[in-house]
């Protein structure tokens, strides 16, 4: 989650780091460690690479801190750094067959949801189950990159629509269109799968 804790004055922390108190950088980044890793993982799809890219992104943020201007939130700025870091790593691996980072050809197309007649709520406890976790991870991982990025920023890391647009360098309307498609693609894939989750292994013991 990427909310700035209320008690933090990040502008002040940044000023202090720039004045030579480099240790304060450790505190400054602590709330964003998770988001930066998740965004790196979303593109690189490999834990070790994602961790390395996350470390590199934090180091770049440190080196370039003087260039940070408070027009954007610090968290949004960090996210754009890690996305750039992950993208450039993907490009360097050009010998390896990679997914296109551009818009898929069906960008103009509509995504139809999975049609259901009723939906029985799947409780959060279901995520405790490995099979459900893998199902969710796989579905997100299978999204084309431009949809995966926006989905993770907005629905997993909970950036606002405006912050997501800033982090990705795209317009607010592009955010809305991509987010809608991402959500529909996930519904189409996951709703039928989640309905099939073996009910014999119950996750709510009170039923």
């Amino acid at each position, binding site marked *: 989650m990427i909310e700035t804790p209320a008690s933090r004055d990040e502008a002040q922390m940044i000023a202090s780091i720039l004045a030579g108190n*480099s240790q304060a950088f450790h505190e400054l980044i602590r709330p964003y460690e998770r988001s930066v890793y998740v965004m790196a993982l979303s593109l690189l799809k490999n834990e070790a690479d994602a961790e390395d890219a996350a470390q590199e992104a934090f180091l770049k943020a440190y080196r370039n*801190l003087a260039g940070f201007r408070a027009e954007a939130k610090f968290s949004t700025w960090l996210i754009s750094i890690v996305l750039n870091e992950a993208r450039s790593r993907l490009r360097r691996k050009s010998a390896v067959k990679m997914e296109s980072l551009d818009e898929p050809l069906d960008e103009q197309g509509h995504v139809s949801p999975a049609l259901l007649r009723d939906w029985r709520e799947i409780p959060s406890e279901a995520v405790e189950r490995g099979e459900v976790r893998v199902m969710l991870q796989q579905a997100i991982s299978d999204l084309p990159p431009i949809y995966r990025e926006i989905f993770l920023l907005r629905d997993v890391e909970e950036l606002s629509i405006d912050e997501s647009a800033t982090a990705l360098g795209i317009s607010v309307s592009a955010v809305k269109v991509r987010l809608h498609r991402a959500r529909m693609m996930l519904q189409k894939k996951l709703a039928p799968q989640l309905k099939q989750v073996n009910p014999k292994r119950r996750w709510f013991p009170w039923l």
Partner: protein
Amino acid sequence: MVIECKHVWEHISGYLDGTLDPAVRELVQKHLEHCEICSAILDSTRNILILTADERVFELPLGYSERLHARLEAEMRGIAPPIDSEDG
């Protein structure tokens, strides 16, 4: 005015985010009240968003934070402090 299911589907995401134009929202709302298929699509989408937002879906590697801060510590020593040279 009545809208068809496939038009409602185009607004599911905006409906969840509360970003629809009030007139469109009203149309979608009315449709949802009597269409069980669109209601199920809305409910399943909302449910899926709650599940995927769960922190347990993407777990940090064990020791990630410790390794990160150790590397920062080691490398920050070799980097001149990021003095704000432009306008202070």
